[in-house]
């Protein structure tokens, strides 16, 4: 199987249409930590879980991206949720179930899920 740039463009357009990524004003931002530590502990599945929630919600104002190791490897898999105008919140030891709760409560309704949160703010390392 050989994928050419034009094929990838078509796939990209199809996926963007289905997930509504990066369109809209960016009311919220989801960042999954994809350092080696994160990936080794399941960050790709966490990323997919967030994307599934995003797709199901039909929302167009949520930005989705990845970043590297935050220097808190023992807390992986991690994600940072940032609602426009508010401090980012780091969520740790994520599971698919926690992703669903965090998406519904924090991303959609602005309510921090305290039992899964490590704290507010951004890391300096990475």
């Amino acid at each position: 199987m050989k994928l050419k740039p034009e094929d990838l463009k078509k796939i990209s357009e199809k996926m963007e249409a289905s997930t509504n990524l990066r369109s809209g004003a960016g009311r919220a931002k989801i960042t999954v930590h994809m350092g080696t530590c994160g990936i080794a502990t399941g960050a790709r599945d966490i990323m997919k879980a967030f994307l599934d929630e995003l797709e199901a919600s039909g929302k167009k104002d949520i930005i989705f991206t990845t970043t590297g190791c935050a220097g808190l490897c023992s807390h992986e898999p991690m994600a940072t949720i940032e609602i426009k105008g508010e401090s980012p919140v780091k969520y740790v030891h994520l599971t698919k179930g926690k992703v669903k709760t965090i998406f519904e409560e924090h991303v959609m309704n602005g309510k921090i899920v305290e039992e899964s949160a490590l704290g507010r703010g951004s890391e300096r390392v990475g």
Partner: protein
Amino acid sequence: MEDLSLHILDIVENSIRAGSSRVEVSLEKKTEGKNPTENILYLNIKDNGSGMDENTLKIVSSPFYSSKEGKYFGLGISLLKQAALETNGDFKIDSKEGIGTEINAELKMEHPDMKPLGDIMLTIKMLRLSHPEIEFVYDNESNS
């Protein structure tokens, strides 16, 4: 890492953080000689990111090197190298500052320590969705 698709995701995340606008991932299976137990998987990852100088290139495969300030270990490249060498394969990394980096890994597929390929299309999909600004080119000649 459980499988090769996660190693690929990890290495390409390095490329993204190195400021690449284009990353090429290629998988090719070749049979060396007539013996089917000599199937070799060639993995090539090439980016046009910031690259490395010669001194960094010499130590980048060490698990005790990281380019990040305040971090004293970096496992991504060393784990892929280990995964390749555990199959009696080979691993090479080449880089030029300002040009980009290229990784070549050879993995002997029938070796007991060969990792499963995993879900490579999920890796490519996740990369494209999280970084639509980057051009990802994926080429699979391994028929798997």
